[in-house]
């Protein structure tokens, strides 16, 4: 019975995946006919960079798994990767530190993600392009003119709204970030916010937020794909673009616009230190025995339980390590307003001080509890005095 059931289940699932596969093929064929041809052959690029065919196949396996697709999609991922450079991209920099670009482009040695990002057809990228001044402006205008409704707009950085957005002015014409973002995103096929700044405002939007910085989605009132993180993992950006190439649409997004395949589960759910949490084994202070044994960082302020991201599974720097593996707790950088809601970063969440003072909510509540008990004692004494006659009358009866 159980066997029959699982066989039937298998048939249903296989059918779903076959349909998905058909959709994927149709979409890739459509792309072939619609988008400009690749600038250079991707396999040649890989060879030039010293990446073997074998490494490339391994990478397709990883990305297929990361996108939560079965192995039969590996050839599709490979095909989508070859199409990567056909997507015209306009990359905008708003109020930010360029850390996301840095994180995406710099590694110890080139891996496939980096090469993909290098080959991407960047029509405009303020940090990377050779053009400057009016020429740069012309690049942007040309991209908007050549690929209206076809290019992907990637935004890095929050948009200040205070003083009519004048806290951020860019380019030879002195446009505000708000104007520029509105102009470009209105013509884009989709807007991808890379990093927590463009997604939710991040540190610029932390209290007291004098520049009135907010995320792109909030500033412009548009739907964006938010690749949150400070900086985000390149895999999450590449995977999202691959998904769009393969299926011609956005991956499933959560309530905050983050792709569910990458931000569907918490850091805590896939943490390698999780067994120590459940066992009740905690690092009490930095460098103690527990820290040496790799115990849970909950008591030294790990925000993994409140943070949706896949850092623990995909890791950083060619999957060498990630913050919790390195011995520091998660700071929750993929969550909105994390500078405010996750503070203090190296203490548990209830140790946040209130109103700029030293007191935490526990101090205040303990004070209230003591005051209540003292008040009760005083009230009981006063009652015994005020109602002393009541007892006499009761005795008389």
């Amino acid at each position, binding site marked *: 019975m159980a066997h029959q059931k699982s066989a039937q289940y298998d048939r249903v699932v296989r059918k779903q995946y076959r349909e998905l596969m058909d959709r994927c093929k149709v979409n890739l064929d459509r792309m072939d006919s619609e988008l400009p041809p690749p600038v250079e052959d991707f396999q040649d690029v890989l060879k030039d960079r010293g990446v073997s065919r074998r490494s490339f196949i391994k990478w397709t396996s990883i990305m297929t798994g990361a996108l939560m697709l079965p192995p039969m999609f590996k050839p599709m991922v490979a095909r989508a990767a070859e199409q990567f450079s056909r997507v015209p991209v306009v990359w905008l920099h708003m109020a930010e530190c360029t850390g996301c670009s840095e994180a995406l482009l710099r590694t110890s040695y080139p891996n496939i993600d980096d090469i993909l990002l290098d080959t991407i057809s960047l029509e405009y990228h303020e940090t990377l392009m050779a053009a400057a001044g009016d020429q740069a402006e012309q690049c942007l205008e040309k991209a908007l003119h050549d690929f209206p409704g076809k290019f992907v707009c990637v935004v890095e950085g929050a948009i200040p709204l205070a003083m009519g957005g004048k806290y951020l002015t860019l380019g030879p014409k002195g446009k505000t970030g708000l104007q520029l973002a509105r102009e470009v995103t209105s013509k884009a096929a989709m807007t991808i916010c890379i990093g927590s700044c463009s997604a939710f405002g991040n540190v610029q939007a932390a209290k007291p937020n004098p520049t009135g910085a907010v995320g792109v989605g909030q500033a412009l009132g548009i739907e964006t794909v938010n690749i949150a993180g400070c900086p985000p993992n390149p895999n999450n950006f590449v995977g999202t673009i691959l998904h769009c190439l393969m299926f011609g649409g956005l991956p499933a997004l959560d*309530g905050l616009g983050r792709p569910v395949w990458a931000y569907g589960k918490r850091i805590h759910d896939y943490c390698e230190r999780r067994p120590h949490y459940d066992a009740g084994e905690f690092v009490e202070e930095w460098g103690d025995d*527990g820290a040496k044994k790799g115990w849970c960082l909950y008591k030294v302020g790990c925000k993994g339980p409140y943070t949706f991201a896949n850092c623990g599974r995909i890791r950083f720097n060619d999957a060498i390590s990630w913050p919790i593996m390195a011995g520091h707790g998660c700071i929750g950088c993929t969550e909105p307003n994390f500078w405010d809601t996750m503070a203090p970063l190296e203490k548990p969440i209830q140790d946040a001080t209130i109103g700029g003072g030293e007191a935490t909510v526990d101090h205040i*509540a303990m004070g209230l509890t003591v005051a209540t008990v003292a008040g009760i004692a005083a009230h009981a004494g006063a009652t015994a005095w*005020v*109602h002393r006659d*009541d007892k006499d009358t009761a005795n008389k009866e």
Partner: protein
Amino acid sequence: MENIVPKKEWSVAIRYNHWIMAFSIFALIVTGFYIAFPFTLTQGETVNKFFMGNTRGVHVFFGVILLFLFVWRLYLAAFSRFHADWKDFFAWTDINNTVKQIKFYLLVSKEPPAHKYLYGPLQSLAYGGLLFLVLLICLTGLILMGAGYHAGWTALIYPVVKPFEIILGGLASVRYIHHVLTWAFVLFIIVHVYMAFWYDVIFKEGTVSSMISGVVFRKGDH
């Protein structure tokens, strides 16, 4: 002798609801404080220990019980065959009586407020407030539970409560609110227990035992 009349005040359902809720809240506060301020178990192998896991299990168990007790209590307030007391939660709207009760509690006046409803004016505020607190702490608790347990019924409830997580500003804020609400329960319990005994001493009607027997002993006609 004054005429003392036993009068049934609390139905069996209300009494069960009260004591199971009291025990659940007590268990939730104890386990909740461990989850917020865990101590490290240094002895033994990790593989043999599951203290935090078990504590969270107990916490979630009683949390769900509390949710069902809350729903049951609302049902009783609306449809109890003995005495549907939803109107009594608005006793505080009689402002004169409320002022009278505050004076009586502050020992300024020795004249007790009129006993028009099942609850006194301040009682009605406190109990209504408690039910509101239970609602909030159950909601935040369900969000935290749903985020942590990905299968079964907990997985079913999570999509329902997820929008509240986003409104409240992420799991971190939800967790903080959950933590602060716990202290409100601690303060409520201290005052509630004291006031129950205080009533017993002042009126000598058996207020404390009434929550077990269901019977208060009214003097005369009041």
